[in-house]
């Protein structure tokens, strides 16, 4: 392994802010936080996938994938991370290396690619992603990026997370490391205020950030940088001047939050935008941290006032659905932070969560679930699709909420399903998002289509099979 990648992975594994990691002994820690994958029974993305997910939402950057066509050609423009301006992040750039590059090395092609991108698109920065094949043949992307940055006078950032070093979650962290090493702290903001914050690990899927941003705007809290949803290169470069930070989405970018605290003294907390109480708690924590860092104490009064108004407004709207949804059973198949943050939200809507998957959840996530659902929470570690199908078929759940991967398990069982993963097109954050989620669940559960698709075919229908009446009529 490239010694630099190896050292990076080791440092990510030793993350001191990760309690999960601290509870392990020396040997277990060295092994890292990645479960060994089982060939023939594995699912999920690779480290490259994770790094790309983490960084691609930075909208004005050209994201260049150095590798064969599979890595970009099979996967580009497939996420719904929204932008309020530049579209360049949706352009697929790849060196698309061929057989000769594998033999002679792909560094020259990479260098030329960076030049072509800068000449044609003039982005504020180019991010270069390493992949398995180019890592294996020894292409030194750090060296190429360094040379290109000097030559073209523009930041060219190597993201060294080839797929085969581990799973998606590790890639999130390795991608984030590239920001820490090459971007954060390289520019100064024009103005700083006592209300400047960073949001870390929020990807603005389906525009969710915009369900939250108006709340912050109303309070006068400025998002100095969101890493990385609807992000801009310069904002990330200036993010070291924030007064406080919120870390979203469990542990995917804990290293950014923790290292920015170490380096720049920016305190952070882990929060969620999913669920009404979670949203309120997040606002309080943000206000609290800013006040600690010198913002006027009246910020908290305004925050509480805003929370009171918005909570009531959301509850009133959700209350309308409660009679319909009360007691309906939900199966929640997702990972990480959503395993608990959505549970709280669903309970608020009167739904009963009959199971939640914890395959990708950390120990803390599981603790949170117990806190919310009680000690006897039905946590599903690794449910096979067949088991999910059976559970739905037997109507032990009325609706499944999951990612796109398992949607057909539900649909083929002729059971309602709602997408709550990265590929979804509905936004479920903040107070607005929770009302929307409840509306979507209700819309899905009560769609007349279920009754129709479950109706027997004429050739299976006993009433139809008895043709004696018809025969008599003809006679």
């Amino acid at each position, binding site marked *: 392994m490239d010694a630099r990648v190896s050292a990076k992975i080791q440092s990510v594994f030793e993350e001191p802010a990760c309690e999960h990691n601290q509870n392990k002994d020396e040997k277990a820690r060295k092994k890292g936080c990645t479960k060994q994958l089982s060939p*023939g029974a594995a699912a999920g993305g690779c480290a490259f996938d994770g790094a790309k997910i983490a960084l691609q939402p930075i909208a004005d950057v050209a994201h260049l994938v150095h590798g064969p066509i599979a890595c970009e050609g099979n996967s580009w423009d497939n996420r719904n991370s929204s932008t309020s301006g530049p579209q360049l992040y949706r352009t697929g750039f790849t060196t698309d290396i061929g057989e000769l590059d594998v033999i002679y090395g792909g560094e020259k092609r990479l260098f030329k690619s960076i030049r072509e991108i800068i000449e044609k698109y003039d982005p504020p920065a180019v991010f270069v992603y390493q992949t398995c094949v180019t890592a294996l043949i020894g292409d030194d992307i750090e060296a190429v990026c360094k040379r290109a940055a000097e030559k073209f006078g523009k930041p060219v950032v190597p993201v060294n997370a080839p797929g085969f070093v581990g799973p998606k979650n590790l890639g999130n962290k390795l991608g984030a490391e590239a920001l820490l090493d090459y971007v954060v702290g390289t520019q100064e903001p024009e103005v700083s205020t006592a209300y400047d914050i960073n949001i870390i690990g929020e990807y603005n899927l389906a525009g969710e950030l915009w369900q939250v941003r108006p709340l912050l705007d109303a309070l006068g809290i400025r998002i100095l940088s969101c890493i990385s949803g609807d992000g801009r290169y310069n904002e990330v470069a200036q993010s070291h001047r924030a007064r406080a930070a919120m870390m979203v989405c469990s542990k995917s970018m804990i290293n950014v939050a923790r290292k920015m605290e170490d380096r720049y003294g920016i305190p952070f907390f882990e929060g969620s935008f999913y669920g009404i109480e979670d949203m309120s708690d997040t606002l309080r924590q943000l206000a609290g941290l800013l006040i600690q860092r010198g913002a006027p104490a009246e910020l908290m009064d305004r925050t509480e006032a805003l929370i009171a108004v918005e909570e009531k407004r959301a509850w009133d709207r959700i209350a309308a659905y409660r009679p319909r949804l009360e007691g309906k059973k939900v199966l929640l198949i997702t990972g990480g932070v959503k395993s608990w943050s959505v549970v709280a939200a669903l309970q608020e809507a009167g739904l009963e969560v009959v199971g939640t998957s914890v395959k990708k959840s950390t120990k803390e996530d599981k603790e949170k679930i117990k806190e919310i659902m009680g000690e006897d929470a039905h946590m599903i570690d690794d449910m096979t699709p067949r088991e999910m199908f059976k559970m739905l078929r037997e109507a032990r759940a009325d609706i499944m909420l999951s990612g796109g991967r398992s949607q057909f398990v539900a649909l083929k069982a002729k059971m309602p399903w709602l997408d709550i993963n990265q590929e979804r097109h509905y936004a479920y954050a903040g107070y607005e998002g929770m009302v929307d989620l409840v509306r979507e669940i209700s819309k899905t559960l009560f769609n007349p289509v279920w009754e129709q698709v479950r109706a027997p075919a004429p050739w299976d229908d006993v009433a139809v099979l008895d043709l004696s009446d018809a025969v008599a009529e003809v006679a």
Partner: protein
Amino acid sequence: MASVRESKKACAVNPLKMSQPLGACYAFLGLHNTMPMMHGSQGCTSFGLVLLVRHFKEAIPMQTTAMNEVSTILGGMDNIEQALLNIKKRANPALIAIASTGLTETKGDDVDGYLRLIRAKHGETLAGTEVVYVSTPDYVGAFQDGWAAAVKAVVDAFSEPVTQRVAGRVGVLPGAHLTPADLEELRELIEAFGLQAVMVPDISRSLDGHIPEDFTPTTLGGATLDDIRSLAACQHVIAVGEQMRPALDSLAARSGVPVTLFERLSGLTAVDALVALLMRLSGKPAPARLKRQRGQLQDAMLDGHFHLGGKRVAIGAEPDLLFALASVTSEMGADVVAAVTTTHSPVLEKVPAVEVLIGDLEDLELGAVGCDLLLTHAHGRQSATRLGIPLFRVGIPQFDRIGAAHQLSIGYRGTRDLIFQLANTFIANMHAHGPEDWPLPAEAIAAARGGTAGACNSGGSCSCSGVTEDIVVPIIPAR
């Protein structure tokens, strides 16, 4: 007709191309009770799987050997062994079909050798499950090459020499560019003559969107191993698309079965050729409903030519799909102004365009400036928006629409519908003329006013009629 050129850019921008192993696994998905598997890192499978799920809106069985850095360097035999045993235990398929990736090809894994050793070691455990392997490095060729290689590997592995042929049985080796609906149409055409069709692979039975009674972890529907074995005993085998020639030639060489390759089955004359063959094979006349369908197509062509004639179209598609679409549109009088494809093929020279470029969607977008319509997969949506022209979605992936599996473009009916859809797209986007669409040139205006444009050199300071100042030449927005 066309000259073929390769893009000389170092950086591919907005890829049109997808990789070989994905094409191979797509072919494997057309085999019944099968588990396709990529020998590579888990991301290789994950990306491909997500792409196909989003295109078909179906569960896609596909596994990975989950190679990591260490296993790559030491060789992937252990991973393949574990994967086979795991899949056997969990899914017990009739066939495990393996495609290599860029990663394991760079290392140089001898998978054929591994499989011999694994079979020797686990013969009993793996009994009842066949294993087939195809070499498909990501850095060579494209999606349809992977499909073609996979079909050839399957045919070579399982088709058996025969002593007797079954009259009336027609084998079909379809290309990757045919949809489940296309295969269904082809089957109906063959059956219309009282013949039976055996398709390998057969995605019309596995990816056509059915609702099974129970959950299955493997493919459900598609060609069975017996179907593959029976190919050699067919009365005749046809292949659709130039990409299938190696597989077809190999089958013919092994078994002596008579074969015919159709470069395309879209377009009146192309379908006529198929119908002529089916008449010969069956010894029966064409049924009345086919004759009606042919008439409907003729009528559609007459109605459609008003809308397609003279239109400038840009097409980005894999070679065989490009050839079929370019042929139909140019046969309707449209002009294929830009043709971009993914990989080399002998059929490219026959594409009715001046040039075919092996390139990406950036190349297509540049070539499509001034065109009326863009035909490519869903990734063309950004280009079409920038160009301000409609996008007609063809090929894979079409992740932002539903019903891609049922897009029909072969046979009389399919060509008829394709023409309707193309024509309707033009009609829907017809430019309504405005009063300023036909401006006179300055010269004409000046002449009409009894002067000569630019005749006054006083720069407007004199009191002459100032012909130059009054001339308004509207700027027509580029379409």
